[in-house]
């Protein structure tokens, strides 16, 4: 090692005077300095078996499965939904026909925030950024012709997640598929809502109660279901650095583990079904290191801190979405390139499933043409690049290993800070995460405006007087009108007594300790609407309010 050190110093000395330096920031997007070169010196204490191990074995740095993509490619799971259930059902069939291997549902804001399509607060918002789901009738239409025993479905829904899960189980019932056969995920990660995505309804305590109810219910009745998709994507989109994304997400994950244990469950009964969801942004190697560090940190703490005995509890399985916030409204075709690089980072990072953004998403929801390219991007990587043929091919890279170690160290530093504040929920109440995220977002914006960091087409290489000519997806006001009629008809045709009985049962359970899931199921079967169920819970649990600080 000393020979190497000497050699490096000699090289640095030789090249110091003569080297030109580009006028650019030599930091990752997160602001971390990177060296010009990495050598064995940078990974001097790398014990292969301790830090990396083999894929499918502790600490899983190299991947969660022993054969990774040689056994099975990642799931190609495009996040999708708009208009009414009929509109989205058609798009899902299009995507499945073009080689997508898993479904992912995007709901509209009223559904996300627990309002029926005919509620006053839903005006202008029905079906516009996702699909409108008011009752079981809509859910049945959404999955019409899609056998739930043959697909896995991820649903991006948080505060009302229990309801959407119950609706999915009911659709399964109607199709003759037992809940035990259902495969999928609900995002159901309220902690990151308070931190970043902001689609909360209730305060933290009742939110955690609903989450632990779901975990308990699924352990018995829907054992193949991922009960939480512990998310960093939104934290990153809100402006955090890669390190903050890693640290805040894992902190949330461990908070859920603690909540489950506190609720009286054995960690191994629910931990195997916790899953993750990360962003894949533009700094290629930083993202790959982030994914690898995540796996290692989760494995170590689950085994050594939380005492999980089942190796499945040590596995950090994750979905990846390429970074929406990295895309530009200027020269949108460049977004295809950005998405491809980000997707490749996800694959090199060992993701279990992947969504690639469409190039027109800075302007509207994906058009058919744009999502076709996005899907094909994954397929080109899968079948033409050779990357999936070798597991963790960047393992052993001096840079990537050094970066992975640095990410882990930085993450644990954040864990210490959060502990000092009393844990995740106290830290949320103190605005700890929100402040760091807002400051990172502002810092990034300043870097762009000062041209310290270049975004092609936006602050450099701009096409003056650019005319963007893309056929955008349009969702008209007739969607809202159509959906309002549907929900009115559902209310008119159902058994009013059954509805009242079910809602009463839900309210009583909410006021007490009973698991809410059976009551949600009763409500769904009676065609109680989502807004009606959430309305009852709003009365019992109250609504969360965030102080309007912007730092």
């Amino acid at each position, binding site marked *: 090692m000393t020979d190497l050190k000497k050699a490096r110093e000699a090289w640095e000395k030789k090249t110091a005077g003569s080297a030109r330096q580009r006028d650019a920031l030599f930091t990752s997007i997160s602001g971390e300095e990177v060296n010009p070169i990495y050598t064995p010196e940078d990974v001097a204490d790398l014990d292969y078996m301790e830090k990396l191990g083999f894929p499918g074995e502790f600490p899983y740095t190299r991947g969660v499965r022993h054969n990774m993509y040689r056994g099975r490619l990642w799931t190609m799971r495009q996040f999708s939904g708009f208009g009414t259930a009929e509109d989205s059902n058609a798009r899902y069939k299009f995507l499945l026909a073009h080689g997508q291997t898993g479904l992912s549902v995007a709901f509209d804001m009223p559904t*996300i925030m627990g309002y029926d399509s005919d509620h006053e607060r839903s005006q202008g*918002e029905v079906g516009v950024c996702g699909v409108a789901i008011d009752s079981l009738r809509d859910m049945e239409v959404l999955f019409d012709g899609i056998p739930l025993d043959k697909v896995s479905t991820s649903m991006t829904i948080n505060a009302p997640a229990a309801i959407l899960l119950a609706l999915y189980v009911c659709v399964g019932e109607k199709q003759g598929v037992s809940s035990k056969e259902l495969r999928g995920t609900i995002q159901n990660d309220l902690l990151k809502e308070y931190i970043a*995505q*902001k689609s909360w309804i209730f305060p933290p305590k009742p939110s955690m109660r609903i989450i632990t109810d779901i975990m308990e219910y699924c352990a018995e009745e829907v054992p193949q279901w991922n009960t939480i998709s512990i998310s960093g994507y939104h934290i990153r989109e809100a402006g955090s650095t890669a390190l903050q994304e890693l640290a805040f997400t894992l902190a949330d994950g461990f908070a859920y583990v603690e909540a489950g244990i506190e609720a009286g469950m054995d960690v191994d009964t629910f931990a195997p079904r916790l899953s993750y969801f990360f962003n894949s942004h533009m700094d290629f190697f930083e993202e790959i290191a982030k994914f690898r560090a995540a796996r290692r940190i989760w494995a170590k703490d689950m085994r050594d801190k939380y005492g999980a005995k089942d190796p499945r509890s040590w596995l950090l399985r994750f979905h990846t979405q390429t970074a929406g916030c990295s895309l530009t*409204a200027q020269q949108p075709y460049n977004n295809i390139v950005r998405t491809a690089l980000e997707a490749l980072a996800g694959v090199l990072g060992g993701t279990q499933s992947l969504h690639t953004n469409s190039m027109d998403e800075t302007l509207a929801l994906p058009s058919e043409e744009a999502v076709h390219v996005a899907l094909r991007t994954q397929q080109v990587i899968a079948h033409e690049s050779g990357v999936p043929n070798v597991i963790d091919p960047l393992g052993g890279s001096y840079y990537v290993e050094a970066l992975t170690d640095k990410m882990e160290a930085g993450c644990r530093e954040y864990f210490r800070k959060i502990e000092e504040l009393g844990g995740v929920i106290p830290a949320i109440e103190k605005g700890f995460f929100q402040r760091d995220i807002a400051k990172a*977002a*502002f810092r990034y914006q300043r870097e762009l405006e000062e041209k310290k960091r270049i975004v092609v087409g936006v602050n450099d290489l701009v096409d003056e007087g650019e005319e963007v000519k893309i056929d955008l997806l349009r969702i008209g006001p007739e969607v809202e009108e159509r959906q309002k009629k549907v929900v009115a008809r559902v209310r008119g045709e159902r058994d009013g007594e059954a509805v009242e009985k079910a809602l009463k049962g839900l309210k009583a359970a909410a006021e007490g300790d009973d698991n809410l899931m059976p009551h949600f199921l009763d409500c769904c079967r009676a065609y109680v609407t989502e807004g009606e169920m959430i309305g009852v819970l709003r009365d019992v649990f109250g609504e969360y309010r*965030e102080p309007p600080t912007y*730092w």
Partner: protein
Amino acid sequence: MAERIRVLVAKPGLDGHDRGAKVVASALRDAGMEVIYTGLHQTPEMIANAAVQEDVDVVAMSILSGAHMTMFPRVLELLKEKGLDDVVVTGGGIIPKEDMEKLVAMGVDRLFGPGTDTRDIAAYITDAVASKRGGR
């Protein structure tokens, strides 16, 4: 010496994406303006009332949920009803160019899409408010 420009930064509707609104609020504050941030989940009525109560020069709305063709016109209508004809109405978010043009035709003063330099927003607001004040 001109009074400080008072800007209401608002998030209408159910949309929770507040990165842009907060970045703009911080930038305008750094540019010397008085910024009042409404926080999330504001109805058009709440925004118009806040505009009156805070006696603002500018209402700046951020919408990324696609509900802009309902929210902007409704706020414009309410501001008019309350006699706030001189308020500069601006904003941004995920709004296709075609819709921006329609909204400007309806009375929105100017909209700023993704990739905007916040200094351009500050400069625009300074000029727009000066014109409106000059007109009184």
